């Protein structure tokens, strides 16, 4: 059988919010979301109710919530940050979600990811914003099956699917 032993799936939409601001804004978000937003780039935290907050840098986060909840969360965050310097923007349609899983996932990813994804330095729960082939992505190493969730800007969705399929030699 030609091809790497992987499966590639397009995932359903999630709600996404782009959160930016200094310490005050971060505290306000922490309080409302009951979370501790990391200040270190390329880290994530998960909440009890399945939300994920990706830290893109010390003043910039991407919050993933269940699709449909984003407007409520956005409005509540706005209310709690009325006098604080911040920017909260709905980006739920900005990102498309793709999942790469299977024993040879890293053999596929390594063809286009230039950062070190060896499990020793990139264990489950790791995330990074970096390039895959010719586009920018947020990579999330979900579990050891191995499963990687990839966020890509939605206009690049088909390119990413095509590239992964080519790298997996499934096309």
């Amino acid at each position: 059988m030609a091809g790497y032993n992987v499966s590639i799936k397009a995932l359903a939409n999630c709600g996404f919010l782009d959160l930016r601001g200094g310490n005050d804004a971060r505290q306000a978000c922490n309080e409302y979301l009951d979370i501790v937003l990391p200040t270190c780039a390329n880290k994530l935290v998960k909440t009890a109710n399945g939300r994920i907050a990706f830290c893109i840098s010390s003043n910039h986060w991407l919050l993933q919530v269940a699709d449909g909840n984003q407007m409520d969360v956005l409005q509540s965050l706005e209310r709690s940050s009325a006098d604080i310097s911040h920017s909260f923007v709905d980006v739920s349609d900005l990102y498309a979600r793709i999942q790469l899983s299977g024993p040879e996932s890293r053999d596929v990813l390594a063809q286009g990811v230039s950062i070190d994804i060896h499990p020793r330095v990139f264990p489950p729960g790791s995330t990074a914003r970096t390039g895959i082939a010719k586009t920018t992505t947020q990579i999330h190493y979900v579990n050891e099956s191995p499963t990687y969730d990839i966020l890509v800007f939605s206009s690049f969705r088909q390119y990413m699917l095509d590239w992964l399929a080519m790298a997996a030699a499934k096309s």
Partner: protein
Amino acid sequence: MIFIHCPHCGDRNEDEFTYGGDVEHRRPDKPDAMSDAQWCEYIYCVPNTKGWAKEHWWHVRGCNRWILVERNSINNELRKPDEDSGSE
């Protein structure tokens, strides 16, 4: 393929970044106070240092932050700048 140290993300390949020019090349605060000749000097005579220079780089395919990099234009050696990196 130089390996740039982003203080937020760690070491990354240069193709994650966009070069943003020499830090010496700051936009003047009062362009109206400059003569035409001085203004042209700013626009067209951009620093092109032979040797070590501090540069702005934008980590566009990463944390999206602007960082400071000290690079030797002769041999692409890199070193961490002394002061705080980045403008924010």
